[in-house]
C-alpha cells in the first residue's frame, strides 16, 4: 500500500522540491521545544527541521501558522513556515500541551 501511495503521490511530491529557504533546527526533548522562541525573517518562507528526540510522538500544531503535523518519536520532520508578516505566532505540541509550547517570531 505504501508503494501504491508513493506512486499516486509522486507527481505532487515533485512540486515539493523547493530551493533556498533558510533552515532552522528545532529539537523536541523531554516534551519541550528547543529553542522555544524561533526567530525567522518576515516575508520569507522558512524551513523548520524538527527533530523529536523523545520516544513518544508529538503533534506540532499552530492555528496561526496553519500547521498540524505529527512528528513520530525518534524521528525528523520538515515544516515549512511562512512567508509571515512581522509578529508572533504561537505553537504547541498538542500531545503535551503543558510543557511543549513556543513561539515563532517574524521580524
Amino acid at each position: 500500500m505504501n508503494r501504491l501511495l508513493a506512486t499516486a503521490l509522486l507527481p505532487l511530491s515533485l512540486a515539493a522540491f523547493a530551493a533556498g529557504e533558510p533552515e532552522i533546527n528545532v529539537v523536541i526533548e523531554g516534551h519541550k521545544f528547543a529553542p522555544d522562541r524561533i526567530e525567522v525573517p518576515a516575508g520569507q518562507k522558512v524551513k523548520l527541521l524538527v527533530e523529536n528526540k523523545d520516544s513518544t510522538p508529538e503533534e506540532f500544531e499552530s492555528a496561526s501558522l496553519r500547521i498540524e503535523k505529527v512528528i513520530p518519536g525518534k524521528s525528523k520532520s520538515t515544516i515549512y513556515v511562512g512567508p509571515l508578516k512581522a509578529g508572533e505566532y504561537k505553537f504547541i505540541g498538542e500531545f503535551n500541551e503543558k510543557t511543549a509550547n513556543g513561539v515563532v517570531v517574524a521580524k
Partner: protein
Amino acid sequence: MFATALIVFREVLEAALIVGIVAAATRGIPARERWIGAGIAAGLVGSLLVAGGAEAISQLAQGMGQELFNASILGIAVVMLAWHNIWMSIHGRELAQNARSVSDEIRSGAKELSVLAVVVAVAVLREGSETVLFLYGVAVSGNSSAAPMAIGAAIGLAGGVAVGWFLFAGLLRIPLKWFFSATSFLVLLLAAGMAAQAARFLIQADVLPALASPVWDTSALVSNSSLAGKALQGLVGYDAQPSGMQLAFFTTVIVAIAAGMAWARRRAASSA
C-alpha cells in the same frame, strides 16, 4: 485524566459530527446502520494501521507524506460527499414522500451507502489515528498510570459520541419536507470544508502557494483551538485565519457540487 479526556474529546468530536450528519442524511435507506457501522469499524482499523505506520508515511515524498496522505483522503471524502448530494437531488424527494414505497434503486441503495461508509471511515481514520498516537505517547511516557488514562479516554470518547448523537437527533426533528434539503446543505458545507482542509495540507506540504494569507483573522472571535472552533472546523472547515487558496478550494467545491445537483435534478425531471 482530565487532560486525556479533553484531548480525546476534541479528536472524537469532529469525527462524531460527521458521522451524525451522514447518519441523518441516509434516513430512510434500508440497512444504513450496517454500512455506517462498517465505516466506523474500517476507520478504527485504519487508525491503528496509520498510527503504526506514522513514521513510514511521514518519510514519503521528501518528508511531506503525512500532508499528502491527509490531503488525499480528504479529497476522496469530498468526491464521495459530492456523489451523495447529486444522488440525493434525484432521490431525496422520493425518500421524503414515502419511505415505504421507495423505488428499487433506493431499496438497494448499496452504492449510495458504500459511498458514505467511505466518508465515515475517512473521518474516523483521521481523528482516530491522532488519538491512538496521543494515547500511545501517554502510555509509554509513564507519566500517568493506565487506569486514569483509560478512564479519561473513555470519558472523552463518550462525550464526543454524545455530541454527534445530539446533532443526529436534532437533525431528525426537521420536518420531512425540508429534511433532505437541510442534510444536503450540511453535506455541501462539509465537503467544501474538507476541500479547504485538504488545501491547507497541500500548502503545508509546499505543493500549493497560500495566496494572500491570512485573508481575514477571526481568531479573537472563535479561535481554532477552542472547542467551538474545532466543531466548526469539522462541520464547515472553519479557519480563523484562512489563506486565499483555502477559500478558493471552498468556493470551487460549493459551486461544482451545486452545479452537479442542478444538472441531476434537471435530468431527473426531463426523464420523469
